[in-house]
């Protein structure tokens, strides 16, 4: 019997979209789907999870020491619950990537990371070499511990279901680690991994100032999230959490606008699954044009402002 547990990504009040993508992956396995909410004062998030169509039951583990999702405490909880399931899935977010291998090791299971397709209950496709190859792998383990590449699965609706909520007891605080602070980049913009439109800048932007002066008006006009190539991050133009690519975020928006980005393999690995790609670059030989649906060759400092003007029409 296929019994699937999805580890939810949430903020104690609401469910993050990554959870809906992961439930979509779980549905491909066919079986009963439960969702785990591990958090503190997370009753609202549990209620929201119960609304997801196809979710039969929500397990709520609510304790102060689960509030910051520390790996040691969440893994101890999961190890206790996982034995009731054939599959445990989490989104490949920084939380999922942090916690799941710990659970897998404690269960003596070889985790399957970052799956992009489900072939059967024990066979999965996952990208390797930064997405330059796709491996189909089959697991021999009795419990499958899986992280899910969220951009590869279309999110299920957030509401329409009526699952039940059940409380589970969390093991005591491990005392091994403690939370100190969090610096969240404040922004009115949509989150990079959830945005429908992304405007991204590369080394060609020349400076961090130009991101504000030239690129931001375009992002504002489009209601887009802002991203960057690794070259722009390494040059210190923008913070690292803007980075799209193999070593940054994997995104797949409806529209990706690459400005002054040459299109290194490592960047393409992070955005090539976008529905429509636009490239603006002065070098007509730039590799970005090989993946772009629409390209404009020219000086970005002229093209981007006139694009903003054109969009206002």
């Amino acid at each position: 019997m296929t019994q699937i547990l999805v580890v939810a990504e949430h903020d104690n009040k609401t469910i993050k979209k990554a959870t809906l993508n992961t439930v979509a992956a779980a549905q491909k396995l066919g079986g009963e789907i439960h969702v785990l909410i591990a958090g503190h004062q997370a009753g609202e998030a549990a209620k929201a999870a119960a609304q997801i169509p196809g979710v039969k039951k929500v397990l709520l583990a609510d304790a102060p020491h689960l509030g910051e999702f520390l790996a040691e405490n969440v893994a101890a909880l999961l190890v206790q619950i996982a034995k009731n399931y054939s599959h445990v899935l989490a989104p490949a977010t920084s939380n999922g990537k942090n916690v799941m291998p710990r659970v897998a090791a404690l269960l003596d299971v070889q985790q399957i990371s970052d799956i992009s397709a489900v072939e059967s209950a024990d066979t999965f496709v996952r990208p390797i070499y930064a997405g330059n190859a796709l491996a189909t792998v089959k697991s021999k383990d009795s419990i499958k511990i899986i992280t899910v590449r969220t951009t590869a699965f279309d999110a299920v609706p957030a509401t329409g279901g009526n699952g039940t909520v059940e409380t589970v007891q969390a093991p005591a605080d491990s005392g091994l680690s403690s939370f100190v602070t969090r610096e969240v980049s404040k922004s009115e913009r949509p989150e990079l991994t959830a945005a429908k439109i992304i405007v991204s800048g590369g080394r060609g932007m020349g400076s961090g100032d130009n991101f504000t002066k030239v690129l931001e008006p375009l992002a504002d006009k489009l209601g887009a999230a802002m991203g960057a190539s690794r070259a722009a991050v390494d040059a210190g133009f923008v913070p690292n959490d803007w980075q799209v690519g193999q070593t940054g975020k994997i995104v797949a928006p409806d529209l990706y606008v690459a400005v002054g980005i040459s299109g290194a393999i490592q960047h393409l690995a992070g955005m090539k699954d976008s529905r429509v790609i636009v490239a603006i670059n002065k070098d007509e030989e730039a590799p970005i044009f090989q993946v772009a649906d629409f390209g404009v060759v020219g000086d970005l400092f002229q093209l981007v402002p006139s694009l903003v003007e054109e969009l206002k029409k």
Partner: protein
Amino acid sequence: MKVLVGIKRVVDFNVKVRVKADGSGVETANVKMSMNPFDEIAVEEAVRLKESGAATEIVVVSCGPLACQETLRTALAIGADRAILVETQVELQPLAVAKLLKAVCLKEQPTLVILGKQAIDDDANQTGQMLSALMGWPQATFASKLKMEGEKAQVTREVDGGLETISIKLPAVVTTDLRLNEPRYVTLPNIMKAKKKTLENLKPEALGVDVSPRLSTLKVVEPGKRKAGVKVADVKALVEKLRNDAKVL
């Protein structure tokens, strides 16, 4: 304080990988191999800890074929003190590597283990978390800043949407993210010195670890290629295409 660093020999990050015609994997014969970039950051961080006086000895470990010796020599040239190769021809998966590193940790008793957050070949991102779980130690993954504070370490982590700082009790496992440091270039005198440093050779059987793979790879294929689109003359034409053809605006 003894620091143990795990390193992996991988296809160099500049090489454009090719899938083998028979779909059994990626071509690695006659391809330039290097230290996994995240592991290089791990070695650099350990060397900086030693230079600041926080660490006294750095042991580097690699698991894999004999050729990993070359990678270990590079780590010794960066500044590690001695090296251990756990030699095997078996294809190692993260759980097996974590078990081998556990066996080495029990022998070496390090206070801190630093590993790269992921290897750029299998992109698994598991070994550090698995090792800390098997040791019953805390973990601090995706580190962009590491500060030793007596019996504890304070680690700033790269997480979705920003940074998070946690405090972990030692001994512990830390995995590196890109911004932790910029590894130094290896100099010729240090390469010469590295040749004289100790390199121990161990076998998984001697460590009592079963390394047989749990996942079997059924096939490896190239991803579907995107078709190059069209170049448009100006932004006016671009907006028209986006509105009317692609319908994304």
